[in-house]
Every structure is written in structure tokens, then in C-alpha cells.
């Protein structure tokens, strides 16, 4: 068991953003988390990556409790993430951005090593040409790729992708999915990807899907099974959206 959440709850004032969620992720697993905005997905990510501490419940990573561990210590254990709205270190170059990931992530590399790793990662995601550009000058798509490279450079065991694919066109999506597949196989990274709309992408990518609804886990199971579940269609997808 790589990651385990037990009854995790997070409240903001009166609002219960995440309500008693249990979740288990195996090493090297590909999991999709779906749900509309406001269903608690991002809060869940923030709880796993340590941006927030849960009000109730416990979180384990490789059997070790990390419930109240600060985010920078979690990365050292092997958790990495991207952001829904990319958060590059704007005035640093793309290469430096990715190197920062290598330096302070699980890879824990020295400066020279990190810069080399950064080059490799940039080649991997295909934006090596942009390495000397200031990160703030990238297009949103490029920023997302850079964030992916930065997260991969951390050499994580668990990679949390927050709406990585949103806004990409199908060709890009396929490329990224292949890339994730390759990385996952080579390095045995567990990937949790989170999506709002792109159902067909999730079907291609995830082996298992969790649907979030109003802060709670609505359902979880094998991807196709879950997405065709009438309950899911009713509360989340609505009648108009036809999946698959």
C-alpha cells in the first residue's frame, strides 16, 4: 500500500470540503479522480500533498503516518504534484524551474546534477527548446508541460496531476498519456490524475476511478464500470453527457 487515507475530513468555516474520505492507492497504480469543481478534489490533493492539514482522519504513505507532516517533508518521501492553474517560478528559467524540482524532491540532487536532470526531463516532455525562457512567458500549455517535467524531476513514487489534461487538444492528450505510461512503467510511479470534463481521457488512462461529489467519495471501482453507473450519470455527468 503506497497511500492510505482514513476518514479524512477538512472543513473551511461551515463548509465541509472533504468529508470523511477513505482512499487506498497501490504502488504504480493509475487512478483517476473525477468530479465537478467544488466536489472536493483539489482539497483532497491539498491534503495529500500537505498544503492543508486534515481536521479529522489520518494519512499514511508507505505505511508511515504523514497526517501532519509539512508539504516539503512529504516530497522527500516521494509525493509530487502539479497544479490546476500552473504555478511556475515566473522569473526563473524553465530549466531552473525543473531543476528546483530535482533538488528538493525525492531526487534530492545537487545543483549540477539537478540541472542535468532538468535537461533530461525537458527532453522527455518535449519542451527542451524552451529551457532558457523565463517561465512566466510560456503559454498555459507549455507551463503545464513544464510543471509535469518539474514533478517528474522530483523522482516521486506518487504523482498527483491536477487537471493536467484540461484544455489540451486530443493530439497532445494522447502524447501525454503515452508519456505517463512510459514513465510509470520505467519508474513504477503511482499516478493519480484528476479531471473535471475529459471523460474519454480518463477512460484511456485510468485503471480505477474515484468519483467525488460534495466532498464525499460517491463511488469507486474499475473505470468503465464506474462511469456507466447510473448514479454517477445522474449526479455528476447529467443526461446530456454521453460517455465513451
Amino acid at each position, binding site marked *: 500500500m503506497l497511500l492510505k487515507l482514513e476518514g479524512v475530513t477538512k472543513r473551511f468555516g461551515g463548509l465541509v470540503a472533504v468529508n470523511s474520505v477513505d482512499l487506498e492507492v497501490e504502488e504504480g497504480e493509475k487512478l483517476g479522480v473525477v468530479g465537478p469543481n467544488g466536489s472536493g478534489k483539489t482539497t483532497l490533493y491539498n491534503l495529500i*500533498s*500537505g*498544503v492543508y492539514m486534515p481536521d479529522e482522519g489520518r494519512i499514511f504513505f508507505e505505511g508511515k503516518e504523514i497526517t501532519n507532516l*509539512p*508539504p*516539503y*517533508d512529504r*516530497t*522527500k518521501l516521494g509525493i509530487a*504534484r502539479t*497544479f490546476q492553474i500552473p*504555478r*511556475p*517560478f*515566473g*522569473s*526563473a*528559467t524553465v*530549466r*531552473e524551474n525543473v*531543476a*528546483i*524540482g530535482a*533538488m*528538493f*524532491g*525525492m531526487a534530492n540532487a*545537487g*545543483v*549540477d546534477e*539537478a*540541472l542535468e536532470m532538468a535537461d533530461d526531463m525537458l527532453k522527455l516532455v518535449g519542451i527542451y527548446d524552451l529551457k*532558457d525562457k523565463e517561465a512566466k512567458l510560456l503559454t498555459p500549455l507549455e507551463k503545464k508541460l513544464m510543471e509535469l517535467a*518539474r514533478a517528474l524531476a*522530483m523522482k516521486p513514487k506518487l504523482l498527483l496531476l491536477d487537471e493536467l489534461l484540461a484544455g489540451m487538444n486530443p493530439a497532445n492528450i494522447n502524447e501525454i498519456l503515452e508519456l505517463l505510461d512510459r514513465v510509470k512503467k520505467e519508474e513504477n510511479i503511482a499516478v493519480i490524475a484528476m479531471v473535471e470534463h475529459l471523460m474519454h481521457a480518463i477512460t484511456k488512462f485510468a485503471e480505477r476511478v474515484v468519483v467525488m461529489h460534495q466532498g464525499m467519495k460517491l463511488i469507486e471501482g474499475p473505470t468503465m464500470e464506474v462511469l456507466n453507473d447510473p448514479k454517477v450519470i445522474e449526479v455528476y455527468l447529467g443526461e446530456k453527457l454521453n460517455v465513451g
Partner: protein
Amino acid sequence: MKSYSPLITLLLAYLIMIAIGQSIPGMWQPVMLVIFYIAIGQALNVFLGMTGYVNFGYVALLGVGAYGMGVALGYYNELGLIPTLILGFILAAILALLVSAIVGGIALRLRGAYFAIATIGVNEGIKYLIMGAKIWGGSEGIVLSGILRKSFGAETMRFLSTTFADAGVIVVAIATGVVTAYILNSRLGYALIALREDEEAAKVMGINVTKYKQIAFMISCVLAGLIGATAWTLKLTYVFPQDVFAINYTVEAIVIVMLGGAGTLLGPLVGGLIYALLKYYLAIAFPGLQLLILAPLLIVVILLFPEGVVGYIAKKARGTRLENFVR
């Protein structure tokens, strides 16, 4: 980009300045003035430039550094010359560390302008503690030249307050530059850039932002303390609380960093040169009117180069061969 080549530019600039000071009569003190301003800019830059946090209490660190050296020379001079000086530097560093640990521990939890303004009372606070509680001579300060003359002889005293003090300022200034260059190329530097740009994201990238902020803050403060110990105590041979906690040095250091470009290695050098030389020559050309002229000039520079002169040049130089030498 791991590169120490901008350091060449920096060291070269120091060499040229020292050469000018030594060869042109009357230029030595102005050069020392410029170096003093560059140094306080550089030491501030380690923190302000790389984290974006403005430390308004900055002068307090110069002040406690000055006191560290002053206390050693004034109260422990029977140890002998060399041990007293060593003690002086150690005390300066320790006092600066102590103050920065306390102030940093409290104020670094605040962000942006809140941090800046929270630190604005630091120098006043320490000043009034020293004066009110009559610590180290209270408002009468420590006057050293007589003591030094008595303990070590007139020649040594003269040597200490001129050659040695000047050499000390230069060494500290260059050390500050080297430390800056080292930080820029180290994990610390990358961590600082990351947290300056986006603290939340930096945390998730594995950066213990509190730790790195505190480290940068303390490095900056210790360097400031050493500048105070050399440029003030040794060179002026006295420490008066009203003098060493004057807020205008903080503001001047900020001006220098901003003029040159925050977070760049050469920024404080260029900023210090512009600021100190402008002021010096304006004071000579238009005595009494120099600040009246300087103020609008500063505004013009800010309007033209919001990112500082070096920041501007570095941007323009990106991709050219100059790039390696401007940062």
C-alpha cells in the same frame, strides 16, 4: 545557470575602485564610501533581493555589529590586540545572529509589506533598550580612540582606524559578494528564487520555506553586523546609539538594491556606485542642494528601470555573450 563568471566582473570592479582610490589623491575615502554603500546593499540583497522581503530593521544589524566590536575593544581590550579583534568580530556576528533569530522567528511569518513594516520598529526598539537600560554606556555610547591609544599605542590605534578598518570593510564587502555568488549558485539560491516567486508552490516542491527564509535572513544579518563592526566601529572609533540605529541606512540600502536590481549579483555594485557617487559629487557641486536634486533623479530611475539597472541590462543581455558576466 551555475556560473561564477559574474563574480569576475564584481571582483574586477572592486580592484578598479581600489586602484582608483590608491592612485588618485582624495579618492580613497570616496571609494571607501562607495564600497560601504555597495556592501550594505549586497548584504541586504542576500535577503531582500532573493526573497523579496524588505527588512526595514536592517540598520539594527549594522548597529549591533558595531556594538559587538565596540564592546570587545572597549571592555575586553586587555586580552591583547589580536584576540580582542577576533572577539570583536565574533561578538558582532553573534549579536547579529541573536537579533536576526528573534526578529526572523517572529516577523518572517508575515508576508510582503506586512513583514516590511513589522520590522520597522526593530532598530528603534534595540536603540531604546540600549539607551533606556543604560547598556554599554547607554546614550553616551562607546568612544574608543583614547582607549585604543592607551591599550595598544598611538601607532596601532591609527593603523586600526585607517588601514585595518578600510581593509576590513573591503574584505567584508568582497566576502559579501562572494557569498551572494555562492548562494545564487547553490541549492539555497534556487530555494530562495522559488519561494520569492511562489511560496505555496515552493513548499509543495519540497522547499522548507521557513527554514530557507530564516537562513537567508540570518546570513544577510551577520554580514550586515560585520559591516557595522568594520565600517563603523573600527573606522569611526566610536559607537553612539543614535548614530548606529539611524533608519536612513536601511532606506539607503534598499535604494541601492533597487537601483541596481534586486536578486542580481551586480545590482548592489551598480546601485551603490550610482547612489554614492551621485550623492558625493552633488554634495560637492551643489552643497546643501544635493538631496533636492537626488530625489527627482531617483524617481526618474525608478520610472525608467522598475527592475533596476542590472536587472534591465541582464534582461537585454539574455542570449548574448555578455549574459555570463551580468547577473
